[in-house]
């Protein structure tokens, strides 16, 4: 994949990630600390988390075609580095204060990761459906 195409993919994923992070913060906040009050600076946190989440994506980038195994290894490495970076940032920013916080946060990150991948998968499935339908027409199959 060219770098330009990869960056375009990252940009699309950034918006999906930011939306999912916003939803996750809202759900976690309402469950754990519903009385909390924030200033306007709190609106930046999904954007910042989204940007930090995007950096490990470069692990999955390759100009050469990857085999299924290579792609899978990079995907696993990606989630490990992603969790480490976000949890590290959480401690640095004073959001996380111990192992329990980190565990809970790690699970939330993993759920957002799955949601982002699921949404991308749904778009790809839709594309595949359109391609299959057009192929059938082209080939004269019913």
């Amino acid at each position, binding site marked *: *994949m060219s770098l330009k195409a990869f960056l375009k993919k990252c940009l699309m994923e950034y918006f999906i990630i930011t939306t999912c992070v916003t939803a996750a913060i809202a759900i976690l906040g309402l469950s754990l600390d519903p009385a909390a009050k924030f200033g306007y600076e709190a609106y930046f946190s999904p954007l910042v988390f989204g940007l930090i989440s995007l950096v490990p994506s470069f692990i999955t980038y390759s100009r050469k*075609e990857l085999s299924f195994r290579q*792609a*899978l290894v990079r*995907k696993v490495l990606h989630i490990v580095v992603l969790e480490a970076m976000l949890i590290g940032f959480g401690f640095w920013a004073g959001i996380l204060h111990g192992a329990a916080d980190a565990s809970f946060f790690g699970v939330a990150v993993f759920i957002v990761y799955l949601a982002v991948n699921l949404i991308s998968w749904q778009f*790809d499935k839709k594309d*595949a459906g359109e*391609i299959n339908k*057009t*192929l059938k027409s082209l080939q004269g199959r019913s």
Partner: protein
Amino acid sequence: MEAVDNKVFAYTAKKVYELKCKLYEFEMLYENRRFFRCSKSFVINLMKIGSVRPILNGRFSATLFNGEEVIISRQYVPELKKRLLGEDI
């Protein structure tokens, strides 16, 4: 058609042929005959694709009528959609 070690091979139902031309040359010569470049190493015949499905990392897998699976790189998927929608159906 598959490019391997600077050689290009054409696979038909029963035989394998080595082509004298490069893969990109074949692609240019036969793109109007429903052949499609799906990755850096493969050109496939659109009329021989049974179905496509998404797989890991944004790529697609094309299953041919003979059961073979060929990977369609993500960068070639928009081109595939453009080719199919532009075909006279």
